[in-house]
């Protein structure tokens, strides 16, 4: 009885699935899904190698400082960095005094101590990076109806995070002629910018890094080409997303080494205890 009941329930589910499968397969054959421009022209991020890659990766502080400079002079006009405080910048090799100077260069929301009215004041080391827009509506209004995302976690919030940022920054180009030939309706709308590394190919952000030397690097640094600036800011965003990366790598090394040692001891004691006991 239990068997018959079970087989009946089994048939219920399997027949329903076969029905779904049959209908789906029939639709696939009779009406194959149309190709889309996104599917054919979207590109995976380019390869990007950073000093922080791999199990022994360490931040290249010089590069992070350059990346920070790019963020400060270019990206911060539209993008917030809300999880990072000025005090964190000491990890990039800046001294306490330098951090104070950097912080004071930003205006952060404050309160007038005499009237109690909202105003702005120069930042201090304990402040977080201020948001460039007062609210989402202001952000949309200034950016063709798109909200510039916060960049603190960008390197972890996209597949291949740092490589994605780098590819996006260097990937702006004219819409390919083949695309328009194949998909005449997919012309990049006015106000958007074609970028094959962006999921739907058209991006509200205008190319932010447009010319070599847009940011002036100090002496001893590489030439600030678009390529170099993109790399540097990507490296900087790896740090903002994962400031504990170096400590994580170093701790992991010691932990794994210890665990291997302990496991070898554990295996030896296991062999010792089971010696002579066939199993």
């Amino acid at each position, binding site marked *: 009885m*239990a*068997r018959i009941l*079970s*087989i009946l*329930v*089994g*048939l219920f*589910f*399997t*027949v*329903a*699935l*076969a*029905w*779904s*499968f049959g*209908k*789906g*397969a029939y639709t*696939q054959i009779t009406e194959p*899904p149309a190709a889309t421009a996104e599917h054919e022209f979207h590109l995976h991020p380019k390869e990007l190698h950073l000093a922080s890659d791999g*199990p022994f990766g360490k931040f290249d502080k010089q590069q992070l400082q350059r990346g920070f400079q790019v963020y400060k002079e270019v990206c911060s006009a539209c993008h917030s960095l809300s*999880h990072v405080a000025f005090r*964190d910048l000491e990890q990039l090799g800046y001294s306490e005094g330098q951090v104070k100077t950097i912080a004071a260069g930003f205006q952060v929301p404050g309160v007038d101590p005499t009237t109690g009215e909202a105003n702005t004041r120069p930042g201090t080391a304990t402040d977080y990076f201020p948001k460039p827009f007062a609210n989402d509506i202001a952000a949309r209004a200034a950016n063709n109806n798109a909200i510039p*995302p916060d960049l*603190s*976690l960008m390197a*972890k*919030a*996209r*597949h291949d*995070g740092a490589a994605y940022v780098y590819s996006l920054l260097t990937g702006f180009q004219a819409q390919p002629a083949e695309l328009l030939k194949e998909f005449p309706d997919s012309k990049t709308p006015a106000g958007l910018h074609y970028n094959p590394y962006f*999921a739907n190919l058209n991006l509200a952000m205008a190319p932010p890094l447009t010319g070599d030397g847009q940011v002036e690097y100090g002496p001893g640094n590489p030439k600030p080409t678009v390529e170099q600036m993109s790399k540097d800011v990507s490296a900087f965003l790896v740090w903002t*997303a994962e*400031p*504990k990366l170096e*400590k*994580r*790598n170093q*701790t*992991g*090394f010691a*932990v*794994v080494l210890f*665990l*291997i040692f*302990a*496991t070898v001891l*554990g*295996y030896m*004691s*296991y062999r*010792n*205890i*089971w010696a002579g*006991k*066939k*199993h």
Partner: protein
Amino acid sequence: MSFPWVKHYTPAHPFMKWMDDRLPIPRLVYNAVGGGYEVPRNLNYFWNFGFLAGLCLVLQIVTGIVMAMHYAANTAVAFDTIEMTVRDVNWGWLMRYAHANGASAFFVVIYIHIFRGFYYGSYKAPREMVWLLGVVIFLLMMATAFMGYVLPWGQMSFWGAKVITGLFGAIPFVGEPLQQWLLGGFAPDNAALNRFFSLHYLLPFVILGVVILHIWALHIPGSSNPTGVEVKSSSDTVPFYPFYVAKDGWAIGVFAILFAIAVFYFPNALGHPDNYIPANPMSTPAHIVPEWYFWPFYAILRAFTQDFFFIPAKLMGVLAMFGAILVWFFLPWLDKSPVRSGGYRPLYRKFFFFGLIPAMAVLFYCGGAPAAEPYVMFSQLAALYYFAHFLIIIPVVSAIEKPLPLPFSITEAVLGKDDEAQLSVPAAPASAV
């Protein structure tokens, strides 16, 4: 199990004697995981995963309690409190990554533990209760993991919660009011986040309770073994301490190495990038996928694309998704084969290795893939096999299969002969652990 040859606890120190007369916890421990628990000598490494699962539960509770110290269940700040924990709390990043990857490790271990049970027939008499409690633990784990994933209030947290609670809406008549009652609103919001946090803190302790029952029920008949032959004599078993403590001990080492590599070097590999974007009810992610351990069941949910007679496709999917796990409850009565171990069941073994395992692999893969062809068609075929396997193939196979000859005893299976078999029938089950 109290086999006649089991060693009894004798307190060595006067204090232990004093304690034993009043609150015999040392005796309980001795009988549960000490020299007083006799275990078949021939267990292979698949039997280590029960102990590892217990370890994962403890790991999750410890790291979870630390995380809860820094977390605030409020939609306005939940995401930021997690980031604050990672950035500004001493070793907060380690707690966070250990807890997030600990959930994955727990499920890896538990899936191996469950499939060990499928292959070796661990669910069969007299261990049905062990199995049933195990399925209850698995369901509780899924509920706990689901609610835990909502807590960081990232994009996948929010949209995952929306999709999964939306499933209740598929229930006829009461679906929508039930969904609103569960969420405390029309969509996941502060009320839902708060109760999920409350339940996410509660359920692990419920799991702990059921785990104790699971172990208690196991210790009545004693552990199963790869031959599936019951213990016959003292030469079939070894005491848990020191033999299996040593074996579990070094297995923990291997597990810990793999876990540490994941936590320290690939902490985000199993997570979804979208969950590093704060929840935004106005923007739907391109592909909403749950965590990897839900993928097989998510694939089954999405495999039903057509209404079946008068049943809407969505309801069929929900029924099937829950049915896919609930069917495990009936397994002890669907599989009537008197032979436990798949090692002695040639037909069952073929269906296990060439049917169930590939079907699960396909369901795992397709559950994480976008809801598009060909993934939907693959998951339909795999889900079809899944239901056929448990509800049709297992009952039929167990009726028609000719099993291979079983060894006389565990000792014979190990040594090739068993001269000392005393043929003594084990005593009646004892009531204590």
